[in-house]
Structure formats: structure tokens, C-alpha cells
């Protein structure tokens, strides 16, 4: 005899305050303005006061590292979820940006305030050029090539003993003072975070997403997919090169370890933990993972095993990520509905 089940399913509805604060109507009341502005304010203020709250040298280094990885994670998330290109080699951007900045500084004597922007632009151009051959092709090839480039470049530099070989380029200038050192990178992270968020909302962001979801239709509209992918890769590599250029001035040294796997894997792990597709999630993920990796430093290369396993877990179980979960809770509520 069949029983009558009461079938239920979860229904997710936007919270009242979210609906009320959509669009221009948010200006109507303070409560709704707060609802919108508060998370962003917390983020910005939090990041800005961080160096003041943690004045020790050690923690400042940690914060700088967090920011470098945050830039890389941002670039990964942007490319992967808004353009459809999965970059498995963030180390490639760091290494190129870093070496260029080091050369500009040691061989041409330019100060950090010049080398960083120059290295960002030159580095991004160089990276984009090297990635150009695989842009007209299927996404798989981009993944393969970005994976291989840092490994290959490290070996090439070592084998040919150019650019300082295994010792690297020493004697890179540092910043004028500690505060500048800290705030430059924090400002850059905030700048790029909000900048890229604006970019993907604008119409050009639509084109990127169309390239990712439906590239045949984009082609049929007379738009060159390769052109837009190139723009996206340029932006993403600029972020990575910026991080690399900053790093060589932070550690006053450029070397093979800039092509290390950490820079390739941690951003991906940070993105999946923090919540892919949100752009803020990866930054959050970096904030979580980098301090943990500092603690794991004592265990040697175990930390890479750790990131790899995290990545694996997320790929297999396809979890949402912290930010996506929080966003959902903040904006929607759930209730059980009878079917």
C-alpha cells in the first residue's frame, strides 16, 4: 500500500531588504544603503587598518604576501569564471613581472615607483604575447600551456644560466619606508578588485561572458574571440606581473623560486575556498590560506600537498566556497515548501 509522502523542497527567496535595495531605490532609506554598503565598507576599512593593527615586521610580510596571492587569485577567478580560460600557472606572471622589475632596477637603475608600473605593463605584454598561440584554440590548450610555462621557464633559466641562473638577481632596491611598502600593495589589491568588478558588470564584461558560454554565437556576430581573450589575458597577466614586480622589491631579490608551484596552486585553492565567480571570494581565500601556509612552512613541501588536496576536494565535491555561501545567506532566506 503506498503511503502519501509529504514532499518538500527548499525554496530560496530573496530577502526583503535585498529586493528593496536593488537599483536606485536603495537611496530611499538608510537601512537599505547600509545593507549594501556595509560589506564593502568592512572589506575596505579592514584592509586599510590591517597594517596598523599588526605592526610587527613578520606580520607585515604576511600581509604583503596575502596581497600578492590575492592579486593572483583575482586574476585566476577573472579569467576562469568570466572569460572561460583556466590558468594553471600564476607563477608564470609572477616570474616574468618579477624578473623584468629586477632588471629594470639593477641594470637600468630605475626606482621601485617606476619599475613596478613599467614591469606590469611590459610583463603583461610579454605574457600575452607568449600565450597568444593558444588563444584561438580550445580552452584545454590554454590550461596546458599555462601549466607548462613556469616549469619550462624555470628550467630554461637554470639551464642557460641567464638572468642570474640559480642564484637569481640580487641587490634589488627596497621601498623607501615600511608604510609605503605595505600600503602600495593593499591599495593595488583594492583597486584591482573593485576595478575588475566594475569591468565585468559593464557591457564589455558581457562580451567576455559570451565568449565563455557561447563562443559560436559571438563569432557569428562578427566579433573576434581571440581579440577579447587577448584583452582579458592582458588584464589578468598585468595583475600577476604587478604582484611579481612588487615581490622582488619586497624581498630585494629575483630568482627561480618565483616560478614555484605555490604561485600556481595557491591562487586556485584560494579561489575555490573563497568562492569562485565572486572576485571577492578569492581575495578572502588568500587571506585564509596564506597564513595557514606560513604555519605549514615548517613541514616543507607538504604545503603543496595540502593545497593540492584542498583543490581536489573542491573539484570533486563542487562546493560553493565561503563567500558564495555567505552571500547567499545574506541575500536570501530558505524555507521548506510543500510540493
Amino acid at each position, binding site marked *: 500500500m503506498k503511503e502519501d509522502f509529504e514532499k518538500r523542497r527548499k525554496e530560496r527567496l530573496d530577502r526583503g531588504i535585498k529586493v528593496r535595495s536593488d537599483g536606485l531605490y536603495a537611496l530611499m532609506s538608510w537601512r537599505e544603503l547600509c545593507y549594501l554598503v556595509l560589506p564593502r565598507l568592512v572589506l575596505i576599512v579592514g584592509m586599510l587598518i590591517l597594517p596598523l593593527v599588526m605592526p610587527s615586521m613578520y606580520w607585515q610580510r604576511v600581509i604583503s604576501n596575502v596581497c600578492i596571492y590575492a592579486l593572483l587569485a583575482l586574476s585566476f577567478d577573472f579569467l576562469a569564471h568570466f572569460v572561460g580560460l583556466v590558468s594553471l600557472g600564476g607563477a608564470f606572471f609572477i616570474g616574468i613581472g618579477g624578473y623584468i622589475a629586477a632588471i629594470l632596477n639593477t641594470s637600468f637603475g630605475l626606482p621601485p615607483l617606476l619599475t613596478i608600473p613599467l614591469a606590469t605593463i611590459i610583463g603583461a605584454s610579454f605574457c600575452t604575447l607568449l600565450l597568444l598561440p593558444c588563444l584561438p584554440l580550445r580552452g584545454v590548450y590554454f590550461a596546458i600551456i599555462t601549466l607548462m610555462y613556469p616549469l619550462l621557464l624555470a628550467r630554461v633559466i637554470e639551464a642557460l644560466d641567464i638572468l642570474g641562473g640559480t642564484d637569481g638577481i640580487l641587490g634589488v632596491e627596497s621601498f623607501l619606508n615600511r608604510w609605503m611598502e605595505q600600503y602600495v600593495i593593499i591599495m593595488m589589491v583594492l583597486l584591482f578588485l573593485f576595478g575588475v568588478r566594475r569591468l565585468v558588470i559593464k557591457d564589455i564584461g*558581457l562580451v567576455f*561572458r559570451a565568449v565563455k558560454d557561447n563562443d*559560436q554565437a*559571438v563569432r557569428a556576430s*562578427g*566579433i573576434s*574571440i581571440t581579440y577579447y581573450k587577448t584583452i582579458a589575458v592582458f588584464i589578468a597577466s598585468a595583475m600577476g606581473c604587478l604582484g611579481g614586480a612588487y615581490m622582488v622589491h619586497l624581498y630585494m631579490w629575483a630568482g627561480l623560486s618565483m616560478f614555484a608551484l605555490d604561485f600556481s596552486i595557491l591562487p586556485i585553492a584560494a579561489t575555490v575556498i573563497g568562492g569562485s565567480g565572486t572576485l571577492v571570494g578569492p581575495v578572502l581565500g588568500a587571506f585564509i590560506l596564506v597564513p595557514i601556509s606560513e604555519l605549514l612552512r615548517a613541514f616543507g613541501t607538504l604545503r603543496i600537498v595540502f593545497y593540492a588536496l584542498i583543490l581536489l576536494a573542491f573539484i570533486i565535491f563542487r562546493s560553493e566556497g565561503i563567500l558564495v555561501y555567505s552571500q547567499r545567506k545574506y541575500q536570501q532566506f530558505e524555507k521548506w515548501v510543500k510540493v
Partner: protein
Amino acid sequence: MSTPILQVNQVTKTFGGIFALDEVSFDLQEGDILGVIGPNGSGKTTLVNCITGFVGLTSGEVLFRDKIISGKPAHKIADMGITRTFQVMRPYYSLAAYKNLVIPLFSPRAKRTGGWRGGGKLGDRNTVSIDILEELGFERESFVPYKMASSLPTGYLKRLELARCLALKPEIIICDEVFSGLSASEIASMVPLIERLQMEGITLIMIEHRLRELFRVSNRVLVLNFGEKLREGLPDEVMADEKVKEAYFGSEEVVDYD
């Protein structure tokens, strides 16, 4: 006879050992509506893909206004004004209808020509997009252009595909089964739209299975069967042809089972 706007010469396309298209040749005169018919698998969509550059030719050539276009990439061919719709519809489902149109308006051609009714200069993309949609029957008062593409019924989506072509101010539109999936009344409202496009100077190629409706609009018909061109001519001539009938309905031989 002036130069045909499109010339397809001995186009052959093989996939492995299979001849999807076998030395297909025809000319398209400017301002015509050419219907392309044939049983399933006769190579109609492959023909579209070859003309528009989505698939490379094995041999033969395609000329647009006497310039060779075969071998060029798809977006370059679209940039010249040869647009197409997709048989399996490909709107940008996660976007609103008018945002669907904003993307083609990013193309170099749209910037050059200003899109449909642009008169040479591209205005604000959102406005242009809604204007085009309105002209194609998306009622502005009922906010239809603002709806998510995923929530629109088939009739509107087919028009959306056409709108995407119009955003480029095309010279040729190749319609791959625009009538399929539509009810008779929906088709009845599409037909005047097609005729209006023709009057505005666009040349059309229409691949269709709905022969009755097709013959109302087209002035020439091409029949494909197993990748070969079977017949070309006026609709009545073509349908009276024995070979065409055999291709669609089979021959009249009865098999003796004794």
C-alpha cells in the same frame, strides 16, 4: 544579369570518408530569397557552416561580391555582412533579451555601420538594441525586451536570432530553420517580417523543412540530397521534378516478399 552577390563553386566537404557536400554550386542574386531544402542529413547545415566560415572546405570556393571568402575565419565573414542564425538556437540565456543584442553591437561592423537603421553611426547600445527588438515585434510596453532570454517562448527567440543578425546591418542573412518549432500562427507572423527584410535590401538564404511556408516567401529553391545539388529553380518546377519527389518520399517500387 548583374554579378551574383554570392557564388558557391564546386564546394565539397568531407568528414573522414563521408561526403557531406559534393561539388555543390549555385549563385545567389542580390535581393533574392533562396530556399534550401532536402531531407535530413542532406548537408544543408554543413553548407551554411561552409559559407559562413564555421567549417573549412575540403575543396571549392565561395565568393562574396567576387571576392573569395572561403578559408576566412567565421568572424571575418560575419564582418563582411554575411550573417546566420543557428538551427539549435544559441541565445545568451542568462542575459536579458536586449542585452543579447548588445553583444553583436560590440562588433567592428556594428561600430562601422551603426547597426540596423544606424545610418552609419552607433548610438547608445542599449537604446539601439531595444529599437531593433521593437521593430521585430518585441513589445516595449509589455517590457518584453527586458525579459530574460531563458523565459521567452520559441517565437521570440527565433526573432532574437534574427535581431542578432540585424544588429550587424547585414547584406545576407542565412536562416537555418527559423520556422521550425513554431506554430502556424507564429509562422504566419514571421512571414511578413521576412518579406520586410527582403524589401529593405537584404538577401536571404532560408533552410527549411516547412515547404509550404517557404514557397510563399522564396523566389528560388535549391534541393540538396546526400550532399549533392539535386535541382535548382522556381519552387513549382522543383517540386514537380521526379527526382526531388523520390528524394523526399522514396521511389514507387514495391518489394515482392515472396
